[in-house]
């Protein structure tokens, strides 16, 4: 669907490809005899393609399935159906033993740097753990040196190997987490809200670090966030998620400057205007109601319950993620139409 976006890079094979990925969690009742009373449809048919050296941003509000998608992509959860390919290798249905070699190629950066590091291990042990799991990567006597190089690479002093995580600040901890994820030299890094737990001043530093690492190592990122401006800064392509589905997918410029899906427009219009003089001079869309339960999502288009354009057709048919007649990028809406909600004009 987005073949033209990747071809510019002359990389025919995506490093990460998800096709029709579905993840349903059963909701069970009963103590002795468990019966399934429904499914949480956390991720429902997501297609993604990520090319080497590129960044794909995934945005959406809380509970739309972003984190589940991250876990699926790195193989921590098996998908209910669909396929996930890392460097062309299917990981969706691998056993925990068979998936181990693939783990070298795709790693996860966590949201909360305070819970993602074992408080009882020194930084050296944390960053060196990947080498103890994959013992054939680096011989034992060279591991200490490699750990120091990794710390240096993420901007920490190599002399800190003997310290414990609590002796570091949030930003430094996140750097340690990034160093651990990079230890096995993966090609893809899935960042699950990597900066949302940090102070704004530190967020910039970590984002810059990620950009520098991407340049140096040729990494591809899946960058999951709910902060639209952060994603705009780092992402080449953006996918907007709502209730487990991608509703709009395009380049950064297409999504931010020419949003076509009503949900994207509503999201973007909620971003504060930095210039106080221009406040109130921009169209603002305030959505009504809450996100419906993913256990029992609305029929047809999942956004229809909160959409001002919804008609009967929206309740009966599921809109596909299509470019449409006059469109520029794939949008899952029957009434997709560009609307300027990002530019405030006096």
């Amino acid at each position, binding site marked *: 669907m987005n073949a033209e976006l990747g071809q510019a890079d002359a990389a025919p094979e995506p490093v990460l490809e998800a096709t029709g990925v579905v993840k349903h969690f059963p909701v069970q009742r009963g103590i002795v005899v468990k019966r399934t009373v429904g499914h949480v449809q956390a991720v429902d048919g997501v297609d993604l393609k990520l090319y080497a050296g590129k960044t794909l941003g995934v945005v959406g509000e809380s509970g739309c399935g972003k984190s589940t998608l991250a876990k699926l992509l790195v193989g921590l959860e098996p998908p209910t159906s669909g396929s996930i390919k890392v460097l062309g290798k299917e990981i969706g249905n691998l056993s925990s033993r068979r998936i*181990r070699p693939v783990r070298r190629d795709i790693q996860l950066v966590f949201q909360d740097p305070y819970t993602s590091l074992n*408080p*009882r291990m020194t930084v050296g042990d944390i960053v060196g753990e990947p080498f103890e799991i994959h013992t054939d990567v680096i011989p034992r006597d060279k591991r200490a040196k490699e750990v120091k190089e990794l710390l240096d690479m993420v901007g920490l*002093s190599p002399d800190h190997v003997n310290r*414990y995580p609590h002796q570091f600040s949030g930003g430094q901890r996140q750097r340690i987490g990034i160093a651990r994820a990079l230890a096995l030299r993966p090609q893809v890094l899935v960042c699950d809200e990597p900066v949302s737990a940090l102070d704004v001043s530190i967020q910039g530093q970590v984002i810059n670090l990620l950009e520098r690492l991407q340049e140096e190592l040729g990494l591809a990122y899946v960058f999951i966030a709910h902060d639209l401006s952060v994603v705009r800064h780092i992402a080449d392509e953006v996918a907007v998620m709502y209730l487990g589905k991608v509703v709009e997918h395009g380049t950064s410029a297409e999504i931010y400057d020419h949003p076509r899906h009503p949900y994207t427009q509503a999201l973007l219009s909620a971003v504060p205007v930095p210039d106080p003089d221009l406040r109130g001079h921009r169209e603002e869309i305030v959505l009504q109601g809450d996100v419906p339960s993913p256990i029992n999502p609305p029929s047809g288009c999942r956004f229809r319950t909160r959409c001002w354009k919804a008609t009967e057709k929206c309740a009966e048919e599921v809109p596909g993620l299509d470019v449409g007649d006059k469109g520029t990028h794939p949008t899952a809406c029957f009434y997709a139409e560009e609307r300027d909600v990002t530019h405030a004009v006096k």
Partner: protein
Amino acid sequence: MTELTAPTAQSEVPQASLWKDAFRTMARRPDVIFATLIMLFVFTMAAFPGLFTDKDPTRCLGRDARLRPDTWFTGEHPLGTDGFGCDFAATIVHGTRPTITLALTVIILSVLIGMTLGILAGYFGRWVDAIISRALDVFIVIPLMMGAILLLSLFRGRGSSGNLLETVGPAALALTLFGWMEFCRYARAATIETKNLDYVTAARCLGARDRRIMFKHVLPNAIVPITAIVPTSLGSVIVAEAALAVLGIGVQPPATSWGVLLSNGTQWAGGGYIYLFGIPLVLLILTVFAFATFGDALRDALDPKLR
């Protein structure tokens, strides 16, 4: 870039490993040193009773019965004699080995069984948890005393040849069998709490096997609540053994234990022979205190945040 400067609050000592650092921290605390000295004293009594007394605890003379220790630590009977005329110092010293052996055996076995089952149950959940948790319930429902009495009746009247295993074996077996549940519950709870933390997910994402996650990430967390209950359990094992001794199914005679002395001592304590009760009690309290202090310090030392 203040972000990159090192936190300089701590003096930069070369840190080696969690355990070495813990040892260094503990060696600096006076209460830990005191506790260690008490433990050393008790263990030396258990290992080499000959160093502390030259009397035979089984050589009792009726005419010497209930001699108060007026001379205190000197003379023929440094701590007096008991109701049957046995030298009390010798009785206590020779009773240390069965007591300590029994207590440590029970605690070590209980912790091993409890932690293993608890971590397995908490980590794997599902049917493993169901089986272990139901077994746990069954054992918790049986009162310790009743279970121990029923079990030990099997060994009753066998007598003992003085062999340590035969002396404390049955009691240790009974107390372990009905004493591991508490450790199991604590370990299970700590495991369930830990296994969903991000750093465990990170390890799994790196490809760590279950065994590695359990030993490296879950176990250090599960040990924390357990170090807190081990010292008190140690005391209660010694007291429980005393209760079994009253029924004649604890440590087998002619061997004796602090528990036996305690229960015998209560009969005389009211009649002005309070030392027969007081001295074993003080020993017991000191020992439990030493283990508690040591365990507490160990837990603090193993937590880098408290260092």
